[in-house]
């Protein structure tokens, strides 16, 4: 069996996937650190352990993500655009538009029927519209990230919160808290703010169905609801067994498979 691996070192989370026999053998998600090489090694070894495989059995390892150049054991590194496109297409063949909301940036990727990258747009200059935005706001609100979705579906109209700058949005949120506005309304407002930022990026590339969402923020049902409403378009879900946060690492492992086959 040909075994390959993909290691995605993101700004907030690091992910590793061990792939073989046309399926995911194991996957690990862990926090990123100031020592990306060490983090990469740790999650890779944990993933190998979960898969019951040894390092020597892995034919090719591909690194991706912001820290891709810091994966010392990777045979090559590929940008997260190609990896997310490839991974999303593998997980859901009908995917043509991939929206990746990561910790540090947001990407919209257009792929063809074979998963080839056709076009993309990125917001990599500003925290607004990224996972970092929600993390910052959770700190201000004293909430955990996993509490946001539940609050989103509570009663109450969303507050209006600007989408142009996370720093300004933080001030707005502090003001709302001090005005006694219920937290669910603020959370809904934050999701709406993120959604409107993301929607303009999606429109730059254009929506080609199916539209899927990847990255850690994809686990927040509230954000998905807000984006669907903003775009007036239903987002397609990956099969339940696929974690949207490992799509980049999966794509890297698939590209590693291609590479191993052509060797």
């Amino acid at each position, binding site marked *: 069996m040909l075994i390959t691996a993909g290691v995605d070192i993101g700004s907030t989370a690091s992910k590793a996937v061990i792939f073989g026999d046309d399926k995911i053998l194991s996957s690990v998600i862990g926090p990123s650190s100031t020592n990306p090489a060490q983090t990469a090694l740790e999650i890779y070894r944990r993933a190998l352990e979960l898969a019951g495989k040894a390092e020597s059995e892995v034919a090719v390892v591909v690194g991706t993500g912001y820290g891709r150049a810091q994966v010392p054991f990777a045979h090559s590194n590929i*940008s997260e*655009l190609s990896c997310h496109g490839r991974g999303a297409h593998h997980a859901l063949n009908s995917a043509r538009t991939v929206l990746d909301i990561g910790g540090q940036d947001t990407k919209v990727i257009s792929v063809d029927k074979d998963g080839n990258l056709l*076009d993309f747009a990125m917001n990599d200059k500003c925290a607004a519209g990224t996972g970092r935005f929600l993390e910052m706001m959770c700190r201000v609100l004293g909430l955990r990230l996993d509490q946001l979705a539940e609050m989103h579906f509570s009663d109450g109209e969303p507050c209006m919160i600007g989408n142009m700058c996370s720093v300004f949005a933080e001030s707005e949120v502090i003001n709302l808290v001090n005005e006694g506005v219920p937290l669910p309304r603020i959370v809904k407002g934050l999701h709406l703010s993120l959604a409107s930022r993301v929607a303009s990026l999606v429109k730059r590339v254009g929506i080609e169905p199916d539209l899927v969402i990847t990255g850690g923020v994809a686990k927040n049902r509230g954000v998905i609801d807000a984006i669907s409403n903003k775009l007036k378009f239903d987002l397609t879900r990956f099969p339940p067994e696929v974690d949207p946060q490992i799509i980049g690492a999966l794509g890297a492992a698939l590209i590693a498979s291609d590479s191993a086959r052509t060797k």
Partner: protein
Amino acid sequence: MPILGKTRQREWETVWKTLADMKSLFAADEEELGMNGLLENIQKLVIDQFQKADAGLPTVWHNIGFGPPLIFALGDDVNHVPLAEMSALCSILGDQADTEALIDASEAAGYSPECCSADKGGIGAVVKGLYPDPCCIVGINTPCDSQVAAFNSMAELRNKVPCFAIDAPAYDDERTYQYMASQLRELIPFLEKHTGRKLEWEKLKQVCETANRTAEYLWQWMEYRSLKPTMQPSKLCAFTMVLMITLIGSPLGEAIAKGLAEDAKRKVESGVKFFDEKVRAIWYQDPVWWDIQLYDWMEAELGLTIPMDIFGYYCSEGWINTKNMDTALYDLGKLTVNAGPMSRQFRLNMNRYIDDFMTLHKRFQADCGIMAGHVACKHAWGGVGLFKEACKKAGIPLLLFEFDMFDSRVLTRKELQFELKRFVNEIAIPAKERKERAKS
């Protein structure tokens, strides 16, 4: 470093020194005849401008939408200064920090930060007194609103100097050309009055014939530039726009065009290959003037060549009928609106912008397009969705990014390189390979 025996402003001396250094650098390279010709004639232009200014000869200022043939036709003893000259010279040949200081000077003087940096640098040069005082100013309202603002600012900064405004309609028909010709006809007595020179038909005819020969050389050059493999550096295509704005109708302009064409011809005939290209793109917007060496990096690092850009290609479209004064003015008017860099592309709706791209893409056998979106160019940004849609429909990979053509503070070299590298390696080259696989 003194210029023609006199101490000049520091910005000019920096340009002069770099020009001399670059000339000696390229002179040693036999393969750089095209670049040598450019540098040689740019130096001649600077010398000519200083000689005329030192001799107290009349100077006409104009904004970049207005070409200089009618000024040349006043005789060899009239000076002309395109407003953006200093922006270009400092960025290409001098110190980029000087261009940015000129931009800041114009903004500090009240010129709108939203305007084009080509004009902002030009206005900064006026504020700093880098141009010889004008006897009159000619302005035109094309290619963009920034040009109108630049003309107004020139007029305000020299409020005793007579101005002539040309109104270019947003149409492309017989009436437009006639209207343009009639304004050029009115401009002649204005220029004669303020320069104290007489515009003779024989001289104008000579200027137009020179412009025609220049166009012919450029057409020949384009033929060679469209061939594969590429035989000359990509960066040469950026200078066609400079030629059109500054030198069309002058022997210097003709010499540059001739040099480019002959250099390309010799290389094609002798089988000289410039380098192994992996992918070629049509550069569809302004060149990166603050780092013209970026083209060298694209070639060396990415295998990416630019055979032609949007503004360079249509420079050679204007053919002037020299049968008589009327036919010449008619064609000069037509040339101003139809072949002028940016005036051609942004005066009408987006159809021409898109159609021109498709023409270039086919003729130059390109694999993709790069729309270097100058931040101030709202004309291009206003229709970018239509352009993207057309490229998508035609299956042409397109890179789109925001930058400023004269100001490196908006998008840095590193960021620009990142954008280009990502696009070429992840979209353009794989798309080309897929296309080739499908063909075979």
